[in-house]
């Protein structure tokens, strides 16, 4: 009992930290960091537009003109020398199927980096972004957005 009392006494005299300055620093730091904290990270997807002064497709033979068409209820994957594939969007694994189809194309034509994403006027922006995500994940980083003719 006496020992405990002695230890308590020592702690209050020798070990007592003056925490006030540190608290002040924290109290200033926390609001500052909270206001600058980014909880939603905004990133970007770079796209290219088929420019108005449409550059002549110089290497037309080499180009695959791979296109993914987003229709209301299905995706169409087509291109020169590629078997046309239709994927129903109602399927639960439509995204996986599309990724597979694109991955197939990529493995058959490894030097092709371009894909056209053909959308209809009523296509939702989020669907376009989703298809761009899928094509980028499948190894087609350069997507251009095209309107349905």
């Amino acid at each position, binding site marked *: 009992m006496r020992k405990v009392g002695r230890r308590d*006494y020592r702690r209050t005299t020798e070990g007592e930290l003056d925490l006030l300055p540190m608290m002040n620093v924290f109290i200033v730091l926390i609001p500052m960091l909270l206001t600058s904290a980014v909880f939603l990270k905004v990133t970007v997807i770079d796209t290219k537009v088929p420019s108005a002064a449409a550059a002549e497709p110089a290497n037309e033979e080499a180009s695959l003109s791979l296109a993914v068409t987003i229709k209301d209820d299905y995706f169409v994957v087509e291109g020169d020398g590629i078997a046309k594939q239709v994927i129903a969007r109602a399927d639960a694994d439509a995204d996986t199927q599309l990724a597979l189809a694109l991955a197939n194309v990529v493995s058959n034509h490894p030097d092709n980096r371009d894909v056209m994403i053909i959308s209809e006027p009523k296509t939702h922006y989020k669907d376009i972004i989703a298809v761009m995500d899928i094509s980028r994940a499948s190894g087609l980083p350069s997507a251009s957005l095209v309107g349905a003719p």
Partner: protein
Amino acid sequence: MRHHAKRNRLKPSNSLILTSLMDILTVLVLFLLKSFVIEGEVISPVPGVSLPESSSNTAPQSSIVIAIFNDSVMLNGEVVASVSRSVSSGDLLIAPLADKLDAAREQSAEIARLRGATEEFKGKVSIQGDREIDFAILQRVMYTCSVSGYEQISLAVIGTSS
């Protein structure tokens, strides 16, 4: 002596136990420091726009911002055109937006000239589109941008990776 005894007696109830509080604060500070962004440009979404989610993790760069949501097309926070009117007119070019883009380009060229900078006009624009907008308006905005010389178009999204 009596005073001393009183102080000693009060001590246990009087001193705050700050250790746990300090632990919390330390963890908070570390967490906030971790989320502190130094590299790249931090762009915050225009209020009212709910950006789509994407796995992209390209850092945004500073540029002029076109926001498309509800029925308005905004350039740098100023409403310049209406979505429904732009879409219903058959023209791909949104004339008021093109005017503002040209004005913005001339302004930035003027500023560059006054500063004596010789940097090229980069033609960067980022489009913050609400996830529910239609391709028709996006196509018109992108077309207008490219006609006005803004050819590096980036679509702002919410990064879900990392």
